[in-house]
């Protein structure tokens, strides 16, 4: 079922999935200690940890495909990879501007995962199906949590609504990148290994647009899904990865 061309496409796909989750988790973890209240600080840190954990699940499959140890290889991918080799899209790497921005990004991502992950759970490639089942268990809570916040901020005060709208205007176009297919991804779709992202996009759009409108937000109309998935810009990734790998560069052999 997995020939060389498919294997290359599969590796690229899994790295994209893992990096999207991991880099989003890392960006959100920057809120730790800075959340609006202690309880939400903890809740959002937990969400970040979940996303980091999901990233690792995808990295483990990459490890198996490459004949590496699934226990140790994810650390190598995170701490020893050059910024330019990460395969996440821009939108998960964007530095946050305020709480509304991070909460809305997490909501849009949770809504995407709530549709994408169950489709991945139906994959004919067993390791993907198994990872997706684990991830699915946590996504119901994520979506519940971030929906509640988008609603409160959208329907809250003039200031909270204004901040939410600004965040939506900043995020909406780049968010479309998540629905662009990677290299030779059609081979995987044909084989029933991953779902067709065009279908995921339609479902996601149908779910989030009415919800955002019900939160008094105006959804920008100028969004187009790019023809091809592009790795995130070095402008975002270089500083992010430099910080992420700072300690491991100082003490490469540290054990924790």
């Amino acid at each position: 079922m997995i020939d060389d061309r498919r294997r290359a496409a599969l590796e690229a796909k899994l790295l994209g999935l893992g990096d999207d989750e991991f880099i989003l988790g890392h960006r959100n973890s920057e809120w730790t200690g800075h959340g609006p209240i202690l309880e939400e600080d903890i809740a959002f840190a937990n969400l970040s940890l979940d996303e980091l954990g999901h990233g690792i699940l995808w990295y483990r499959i990459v490890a198996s495909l490459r004949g590496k140890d699934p226990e140790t290889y994810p650390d190598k991918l995170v701490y020893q990879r050059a910024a330019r080799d990460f395969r996440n899209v821009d939108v998960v790497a964007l530095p946050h501007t305020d709480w509304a921005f991070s909460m809305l990004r997490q909501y849009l991502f949770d809504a995407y995962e709530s549709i994408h992950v169950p489709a991945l759970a139906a994959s004919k490639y067993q390791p993907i199906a198994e990872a997706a089942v684990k991830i699915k268990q946590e996504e119901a809570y994520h979506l519940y949590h971030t929906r509640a916040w988008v609603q409160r901020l959208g329907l809250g005060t003039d200031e909270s609504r204004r901040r939410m709208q600004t965040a939506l205007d900043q995020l909406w176009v780049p968010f479309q990148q998540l629905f662009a297919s990677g290299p030779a991804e059609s081979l995987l779709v044909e084989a029933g290994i991953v779902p067709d992202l065009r279908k995921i996009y339609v479902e996601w759009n149908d779910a989030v647009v009415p919800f955002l409108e019900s939160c008094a937000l105006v959804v920008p109309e100028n969004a187009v899904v790019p023809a091809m998935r592009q790795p995130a810009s070095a402008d975002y990734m270089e500083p992010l990865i430099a910080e992420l790998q700072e300690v491991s560069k100082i003490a490469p052999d540290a054990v924790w």
Partner: protein
Amino acid sequence: MTDSQWPVYQVFERPAPGRPMRASGSVHAVDADMALQNAWAVYGRRPTAVGLWVVPRDVVLMKSREEMAASTLSHSDGRGQGEGSSSSPSGKLPEQTYCVFRRSSGKITYEEATPVVATSTEQAMARAVEQFNGEDWHACWVFPAAAITSSESARGECSFAPQQHKWFRDHKSFPVGALLREAREETEETDDD
């Protein structure tokens, strides 16, 4: 800027199916729904609780044994607060169920005790204490059962189930103790020199 101090909710957890609830702590939240979410984030994610309740703190009456003794003295006309309620004119104040949580001496947590039926929180407190019947108790909380928002009722799509599937590392996985001992031994060796 408006007051940033959100209301406080007391959090209770069920440690295992069929076991009594016990107090976990408290969370800030703008409403009960957010309180339950925050409670789950703060107290429920480790695989310890199978159910959570949140109750607004301002409906919870909290008394220590000393405070109760003092208030009984101040009502030394012979009519304790809990007495006479069964003969109170019917229809005036509806009776309702109050949950009772008791902290025994030397314990740090409040555990669920048998609920009581009363017409007011004060009366519920008096009846709860009566029901302890001289048994060991150090402090007592009562609140109307109707004030509970529970993860155990229908919660639709949101699962507050314990995180049994998570591969989180608990504190035992981090060799902090061993490292500290090692460091201490090294220090002692240096001291011996």
